[in-house]
């Protein structure tokens, strides 16, 4: 099992979600986050006041998938989240040792 964490542009969220649904992935955790990477923030001035936008809004998706699905999921996210500009986001993969469903204590991939 692998855990996929993808930090993407908010504007790409709907497309990524739809694309994942098409390959059968519906369960995921979505968090509204602020990112601070190489994409430079900027300052907006409104009526004499400066508003710093150095932490840019992003959406973080998290999902744990059976190994067989991971590559397809990553490809799908890459395709749907890419605009080619700086700030498109990142995907992180990590190994998951165990998953347990609290309701019936099922373990492993059955619990996903």
């Amino acid at each position: 099992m692998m855990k996929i964490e993808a930090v993407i542009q908010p504007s790409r969220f709907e497309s990524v979600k739809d694309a994942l649904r098409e390959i059968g992935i519906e369960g995921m955790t979505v968090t509204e986050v602020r990112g601070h990477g190489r994409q430079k923030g900027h300052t907006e001035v409104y009526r004499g006041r400066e508003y710093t936008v150095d932490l840019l809004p992003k959406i973080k998706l998290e999902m744990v998938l059976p190994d067989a699905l991971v590559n397809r999921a990553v490809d799908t996210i890459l395709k749907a989240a890419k605009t080619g500009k700086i700030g498109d986001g990142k995907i992180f993969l990590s190994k998951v040792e165990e998953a347990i469903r609290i309701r019936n204590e099922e373990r492993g991939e059955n619990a996903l």
Partner: protein
Amino acid sequence: MTTAARPGFDPAIPAAKNMQGSPTPLSVLGPRADAERQRIRQQFEAGTGARETLRALCELADHNIQQIFDDLLRVHNREPQGLCLLALGGYGRRMLFPYSDLDILFLFGSERAEQESRPLISEFSRTLWDLGFRVSSAGRTLEECKRIEEDNAEFHLALLDRRFLAGDSGLFEKLDTKVLPASEKQARPFLLAQLHRLTRERLTRYGNTIFHLEANVKESPGGMRDYQATVWLRQILDEKKEIRKVTLAEEELSAAAVDFLSAIRCFLHYSNGRNDNTLTYELQAAAAERALGVGDGISRNAAEWMRLYFRHARTLNRQLLRYLEQKSPVPLTLRQRLLNAARASRVEPDHGNYFMVRDGLLEVVDQPAFSDRAVTYSLFAEAARTGTPLSREAERSIGYILTHPELPPRNTEMPWSILHEILGSDYPGVALRPMQRLGLLTQILPEFGMIDSLVVRDFYHRYTVDEHSLRTIEHLQELADPPDTRGTHFVPLWKTVERRDLLILSLLLHDVGKGMPAENHITGSLAALDSAARRLKLSPEEKAEVQFLIEHHLDMSATVQRRDIFDPATVSAFAQSVVTQERMQRLCLLTYADIHSVNPEALTPWKAEMLWQLFVATSNHFSRTLDRDRLHALDEVSLLERVKALASVAGTEEIERFLEGFPRRYLAVHSAAEIAAHFALYQKLSADPVQTELIATRHAFSLTLLAADRPALFATIAGVLAGWGMNIIKADAFANAAGVVLDTFHFADLHRTLELNPSEIERFRKSLADVVMGKAPLEPLLKSRESASRARTPKVAVETRINFDDTSSAHSTLMEIITQDHPGLLYEIGSALARLGCNIEVALIDTEGQKAIDVFYLTAQGKKLTAQKQELLREVLQGTLV
């Protein structure tokens, strides 16, 4: 071993000595209780009313308790002296729902009696559990009942519903007639304060509204707890005689509501098989199907049935709130008292003594006068203006007048002029909320009735559609003093928004289509606007503005969530769709309020920030691209035709010449009628080279001046206004291709010179024309004002900031000045610009409290300003404005 086969007590516990016989075994009691429960349920499902069902369940519990208790006394060879059992809370009131707890108090005559009773009590409790009763018990000695347990107000409140069950009746008598009356009297202020606290906390937990899509029929506002809290308040306050007696009609309404809600609660318990009081979508449909609580056996759709639910919930909630308001258990703080005194403010003389402010609430003084709706409306206008809510008593008085036709109503129609005043005030929600409860809002705006208590099942909204709509307005008025940081950015937008009345009207109507058969709710809402606009006699411009806001009410949140708001193309496209800054400000506030009112968590700080960023980016886009987009009259065929018709001229050539080359914003901020009026002035220019038009608006004057461009024109006009003591709030300066300048100034007449002396208006216009034409000098005018205006110390210090921007416009240099506002400021800036040979192509002047925010598009000899000139200008202005 199964439960039913076990004897009625646990053999593991050592039995007391001298046991006599055995208790009735569980194998007998259990099936008997189950059968009785089954019978009660079947009867309920066959249509027996909730009241009978609750009584039967209560009798079942009573009977079992008495039998088990008697059995155990016998087995333990004990007399009941010194021990008795009381039913408390809902069970004490004989309102026992199928899966509710049995609240039981074991009362002991002494500590010794308590010690001796322990084995018996544990067997008793266990047996009841095994019979399927959920026991929630407490034990107290008589002595302990005299004390107030300050951390356990719930227990004292439950004691108010005490009822004798079994055991030593003499002991109960003592408690009931001697101990508790004395301690309850002493504890009254404590109980009252605690009941207020607990109730307020509960109501707040549920957002202070009855209109939940999946209500909890016990705990939500309007639920059974509201009824119970009302009964307790009446019990506690009873001797004080402070409460006006509840009328028979109100009692009947309340009893019907209790029956209805009790039926739902029984139904929920039976359906869920546990004490779960949430009226879920699925169970709403099932309840509607069987006409639950209605008794006519006619199936309804869930939405219709829920309206009945909300009607009953409203009855119970309204009654509770009225009692809660009767007496504030906590003395008012000095700040609150001062605030109330400030709110009391003036009562307009023409309102006579129809209403007044007491304890921070509007009270009706002369009830019969309210048969004149004009008086009623003036009360609501006062509430909206000052933010002072109506007391429940005032609402009740008006409700009485509205429903009792002995006093024939007068002036029933609310004209747009009054509604516009209410909607345009600082606190429109304070008036609209009671207007809705009293049915007045739907009389004035019948379209709103279509979403009355309407449940829309989308698993996102938490409230009914009407509640959601009213909440949007309340969230905006909260911006006067925002409760959390999510609103911080939007505070200045709310304070400075223009045509707030149209924004609020849009919010009232934006979701009305959800109550209509239309496929898309926006289409329905727009149809509702058509009829409302006709009835209210909105001008075409007013209607168009509301129409835009309704039609596009989802656009800004869609842009924020589905587009990259940091992409200039997104911002540009969005700016094009909203056309003007003023409109975008209204749309932004509408979006903020709309998301905020979906449910308490819907507007995350993240979303609020994104919305704000889009607003800022678009706003900057507007002010930086102003002169890029010039008007070409030939492209504006329909406008030319409209202006032609309004101006009654034969051809459009002259109009074309007039319009050619104005910034596109000119069209966006002026209606066809205004443009026609400007054109009429333009036509007179040849006869008289300075044309002016002065119009008094609600809070200010608006001056339009047309003249051929000349050096320092803008500064001169600003100077004349300053010389007359006028404070410029807002100004636009546009020039067309032929060099005709059209300046619009909105100014406040600080000394009320023009308002109090109408004859001065002509002198003011003449003075303006003379100075602009060079026939009269400006300096003497300014000198007379100088000393007075400079002497005042500003309340807030604003640091002067001057920014130049060469990139936003292709032809001009933008200069943005933020500085301390003061009379004559614009004259000072304008004069400095003129002295340095700068030409103002476009000017946008605005004020925000004590802060002036001015943007100028400048050229010098037809080109952008050089870096040296910018530096020089900065130096001169910094020196002048500090």
